Every structure is written in structure tokens, then in C-alpha cells.
């Protein structure tokens, strides 16, 4: 099995995620796109770990997963706060700094 397979897959996921982050207006959708990007990276980590035959990549993959969970928790809390105050989670409406 070629390593390129894994890496190309992760590149595609990464690009799709980047597109999502750029194109989406809804905050939750942006967060989901960020998850795509993160997963692409973690997939890379695991792939390289297997290629190199060391577990370090897997260990860092687990670190990344844990961090992702934390990031989602905080991110969603912020989205909820924004929603509660503004009745909307459209990001481009959040440009003004006044609360």
C-alpha cells in the first residue's frame, strides 16, 4: 500500500476543509470545516507513524484528538453565547466590536 494514498486523501480533506472555512457563513459550519482540517492533519500523523514504524505519531494523534475536543467545546460555547445575545450565528454579522 502506497503512502501517497493516505497523504493524498488527507490533502483532499484538508483542501475541502479550507474551502469550508472560507465559504461558510454559519459559525457551526465553520467549526465543522475546521474539524475536517484537523482530521486531515491527524490522518497524516498516523500515516507517517505507520510508515516510520514508531508510535510517536499515534501518541500525537491522540493529543490532537484531545485538543480538538477541547477546541470544539470552547468553540460551541462561544457560538451559543453569540446566539443567545444576537439571535444569529452568522459570522459576517459579528464584524462590529460593540456588544
Amino acid at each position: 500500500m502506497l503512502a501517497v494514498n493516505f497523504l493524498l486523501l488527507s490533502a483532499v480533506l484538508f483542501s475541502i476543509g479550507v474551502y469550508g472555512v472560507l465559504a461558510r457563513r454559519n459559525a457551526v459550519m465553520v467549526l465543522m470545516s475546521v474539524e475536517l482540517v484537523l482530521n486531515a492533519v491527524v490522518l497524516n500523523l498516523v500515516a507517517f507513524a505507520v510508515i516510520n514504524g514508531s508510535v510517536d505519531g499515534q501518541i500525537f494523534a491522540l493529543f490532537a484528538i484531545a485538543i480538538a475536543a477541547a477546541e470544539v467545546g470552547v468553540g460551541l460555547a462561544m457560538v451559543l453565547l453569540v446566539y443567545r445575545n444576537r439571535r444569529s450565528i452568522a459570522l459576517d454579522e459579528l464584524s462590529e466590536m460593540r456588544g
Partner: protein
Amino acid sequence: MSGLASGTVLVGVDGINVAKNVGFGIIAAVMIFAALCVVTTRNVVHGALWLVVVLGGVAAQYLLAAAEFVAISQVLVYIGAVMVLFLFGIMLTRAKIGADSDLNNRSWALGIPVALLLLGVLGYVIIDGLRDTVVPDRGPTPTVLLSDGYLGPYLVPFLAISFVLLAAAIGAIVIARKD
């Protein structure tokens, strides 16, 4: 998973595992399709469910790469917790049933060239650099190795991550609290 990783499977001429490649291809195709749906769907909940498919596919890829523990963690954390959190957030922000017209921002079309450019660069680098590298067919990673890693050389990052998680949990509660 021993069944998938070391079972009696068809073996190609150059030692490349054909069944594994086919499985990879199918899963990868599904994942890419699902990922495209995530960024193009017009309903937030559908998007979240497509993301579940992508994350499940990632877990399956980890299994193919014989990273059993990571795969299970992926299911437990991503599908069991993160996605539930997402759905929770979506439902608390009153997701509508049916198509939502304003999920994209006005300049969404700019994202396509950017993403394609990125894909091109990344693809070129990957194919150029790792064209002939073959993923060796190893058995499943023993969990012991992972735990030794955590409690050995990576103890400090492990603790740091734990604190980050704790801080994130507290922060999330503080942010989302009403009063």
C-alpha cells in the same frame, strides 16, 4: 483489529495488499464525497451527519493503518462526544428542518480557487516527495507501547494536554453560562 490487519487476504505480486487497497479506495471515495457534502449542504444537521461519515471513515483508515487504539479513540471522542456536542449546539441554536439559504457568505466562490490551489501544491509535494514509499504491513500497534509513551517520554505534554482540557472545560462552562 486482527481480522482486518492480519487475516487471510489476497496479496498482490509486489507484496501490496490488494484487498486493503480496494478497501482504502472505497472508504476514501465515501469520505471525500461526504466531506464535499459537509461544505456544500444547505442544512446544518445534514452537514453534521455527513461529518460523522467522514470521521467514521477516518477511523476506518486508522484501522487499515493498524492504529487500533487511535481508531477507537477517534470513534469515542469524535463520534461519541464531539459530534454529539455539535448536534447539541446546532439544535440549541434552533436549526431548521429543510434547506437554509444563507449558510454561505457572499464571497464563497473565492474559496474554490484557494482550495484547488492548496490541493495542487500539496498534491505536487506529496507525490514528488513520497512517490515510492510503501506503508509496511505491520500488525496492530500494541496499546502498551502507547501507554508507555504517555507515561514515559511524553509525560509532560500529556499533563499539559490534561490541563488544557480542564481549562477548556471550565472555559466552556464559563462562556456558556447565562449569568
